[in-house]
């Protein structure tokens, strides 16, 4: 395969990248954006953990601490995790997996990226003009009273929401209309099913966040009184509105991750995926239930006991489709010929950590235990096990899996494996400790703590440093591989999905010929993958 006409080389020049309508380049633009956000959010997290090394004031005081955890949350959620897998990896691989030449609306795709960048700049302006100390949830009445750049940060999230909606809309139409001949619904790769379910949530939930944030801005600027009890309004209404989006939003974050894991597990087990339809439909099950559980964030908000009981029950239902996925992945691996290459290591990490994250969710969905655990480090740990142990692990798994497809070059596998290990160990040291602290009653969002938590906090902080080293190594070898990595062929992992049938990196229009599906995405029992 010659790479003389790859999308990386043609057309040339910075401007050609900034006005590109090529989904592959837009994917890379997103990758740059989310990497900056991940580094920034990670730096905020490190500062938090360093402050928590001891109960005394080590680096920052209470006000700066409140701002740091707000920024860590807002940056990681709105700028990294939500666009992470769909907009960056999804943009690159979704049309390739479908055998399409591009997404349905390439101009809208580029617009989404610019909207994302505008949102990112607005968030940065907010950080440097007074900052925000409300937490990423912007709860009223505090968010309408505190000083700082709440309006700017809220508008940033509002703008980023549009970027997310447009991406979801674009992918949904692409999946409907641009599949290669022969690619029927049940021959779609499971990553596509996951992205489809994600798109539905993005489309249905994000506008509600939009109107909520708009009302919050109006509340702050014009004091319209809708969330202000002194004026006949209701602050709990804000919580309802906020979580009606933000609970489904955590599934916007995790569903694409589950899609990635399906690809990785099947590829590196050399085995047909077990329970294809069950995995596909469970994504929709999760998407559906996600709209009915928002009240479980509000068990202590004073909502009625009946409402809490119903929300608790519905929350437990999420365990069913999640469990279906995990068991099907395990069944896929059973008697497969598993090869422990880097992407698979991330996937295995996902399985361990996501399971712990999911199971601890049960503790929080139970009304009685939640009263004890609410607003403690237990919640923080649970959330990170799902979002970091789940989504971030899958994101890096997917990144390492498709990296040779993107650049046509392979990273250093030795250092890649070392860094999976560092991140996995560092993560557990950091966050498993927080389960224990939370169960012992350590409340979240405080810059200091009682002496009895000193050892656990110190242990947790050490873990975060181990993770930081892991990510630093990843940054170095990935960047190195772009220029110096070993060149690879079209299909280095021996996968059967369509993106591996074109050269690495792919040509400008994705494929040299019009694609027709000749075998299912996981037919490892029938087809021997080729690396041409």
């Amino acid at each position: 395969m010659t790479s003389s006409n790859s999308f990386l080389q043609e057309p040339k020049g910075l401007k050609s990248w900034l006005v590109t309508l090529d989904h592959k380049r837009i994917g890379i633009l997103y990758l740059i954006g989310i990497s900056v956000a991940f580094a920034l959010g990670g730096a905020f997290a490190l500062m938090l953990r360093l402050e928590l090394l001891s109960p005394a004031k080590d680096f920052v005081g209470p006000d700066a601490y409140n701002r740091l955890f707000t920024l860590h949350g807002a940056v990681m959620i709105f700028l990294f995790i939500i666009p992470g897998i769909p907009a960056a990896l999804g943009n690159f691989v979704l049309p390739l997996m479908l055998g399409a030449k591009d997404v349905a609306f390439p101009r809208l795709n580029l617009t989404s990226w610019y909207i994302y960048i505008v949102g990112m700049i607005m968030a940065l302006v907010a950080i440097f003009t007074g900052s925000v100390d409300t937490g990423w949830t912007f709860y009223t009445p505090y968010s309408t009273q505190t000083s700082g750049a709440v309006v700017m940060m809220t508008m940033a999230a509002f703008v980023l929401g549009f970027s997310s909606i447009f991406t979801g809309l674009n992918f949904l139409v692409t999946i409907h209309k641009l599949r290669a001949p022969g690619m029927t619904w049940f021959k779609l790769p499971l990553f596509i099913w996951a992205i489809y379910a994600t798109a539905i949530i993005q489309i249905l939930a994000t506008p509600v966040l939009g109107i909520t944030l708009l009302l919050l801005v109006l509340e702050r600027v014009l004091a319209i009184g809708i969330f202000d009890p002194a004026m006949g309004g209701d602050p709990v209404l804000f919580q309802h509105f906020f979580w009606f989006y933000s609970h489904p939003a955590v599934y916007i974050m995790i569903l694409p991750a589950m899609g990635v894991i399906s690809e990785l597990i099947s590829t590196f087990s050399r085995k047909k995926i077990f329970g294809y339809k069950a995995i596909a439909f469970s994504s929709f099950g999760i998407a559906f239930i996600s709209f009915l559980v928002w009240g479980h964030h509000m068990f202590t908000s004073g909502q009625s006991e009946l409402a809490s009981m119903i929300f608790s029950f519905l929350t437990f239902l999420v365990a069913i489709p999640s469990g279906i996925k995990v068991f099907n992945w395990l069944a896929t691996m059973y008697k497969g010929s598993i090869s422990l290459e880097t992407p698979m290591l991330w996937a295995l990490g996902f399985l361990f950590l996501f399971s712990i994250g999911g199971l601890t969710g049960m503790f929080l969905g139970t009304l009685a235990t939640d009263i004890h655990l609410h607003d403690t480090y237990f919640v923080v740990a649970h959330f990170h096990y799902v979002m970091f142990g789940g989504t971030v692990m899958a994101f890096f798994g997917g990144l390492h899996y498709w990296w040779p497809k993107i650049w046509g070059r392979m990273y250093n596998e030795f250092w890649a494996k070392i860094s999976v290990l560092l991140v996995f160990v560092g993560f557990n040291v950091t966050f498993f400790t927080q389960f224990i602290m939370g169960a012992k009653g350590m409340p979240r969002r405080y810059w200091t703590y009682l002496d009895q938590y000193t050892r656990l906090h110190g242990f947790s902080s050490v873990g975060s440093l181990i993770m930081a080293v892991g990510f630093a190594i990843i940054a170095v070898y990935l960047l190195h591989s772009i220029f110096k990595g070993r060149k690879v062929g079209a299909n280095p992992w021996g996968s059967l999905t369509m993106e591996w049938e074109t050269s690495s990196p792919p040509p400008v229009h994705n494929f040299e010929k019009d694609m027709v599906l000749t075998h299912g995405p996981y037919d490892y029992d029938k087809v021997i993958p080729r690396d041409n």
Partner: protein
Amino acid sequence: MDHSQNRPAYLQHHFSDVTQQAESAKLGMWVFLLTEILLFGGLFVAYSIFRSWNPEMFYNAHKYLDVTLGSINTVVLITSSVTMALAIRSMQLGQKQKTLALLWSTLILASVFLVIKYFEYSHKFHLGQLPGKYYTFTGVEGNNPHIFFSIYFVMTGLHGIHVLVGMAVITWMIIKTSRNKFSSEYYTPLELTGLYWHLVDLIWIYLFPLLYLIG
């Protein structure tokens, strides 16, 4: 890549044929309209909650909305939906001049709607029926009447912004039509504009009774 034979200029490179392109565009627009409904959905929920808490105040406050002007505006918007639909029909028949005339009519009716809305708003500003803490009017009986006007202004304001956006898009369509970008073969952007415009109309059809006709 061979894109040469039998591909009209308006067909983008990544679509295999005209039907695929048109169907994709329409599906995308319908999905976008769904997001618009959910955007307003939050406001409809807020309306329902506050009205159920303060039924009498809502009844008393709604009397200060001008039903006559509201009715005229309803007729104006519905008529503009008709002219929009006819504009698309004219282009399907390849009648460029008629399409232009109908698009201009739609644009003018939209401006009439906003002018009437302007008079309604300024009258309320004058009386001090402003949202939230700027509310100074004393004539409404019941608790927190400013909440009604907050909701009124947010809902009709957001709708008004959508009318403005619609006017901008219709203007763009007028420019494209007069530059011969459309034909009886290709008029998808006109259809999409029509879909959007009907939604703006539809939302008003819900806003009007909910705000003006309580009781």
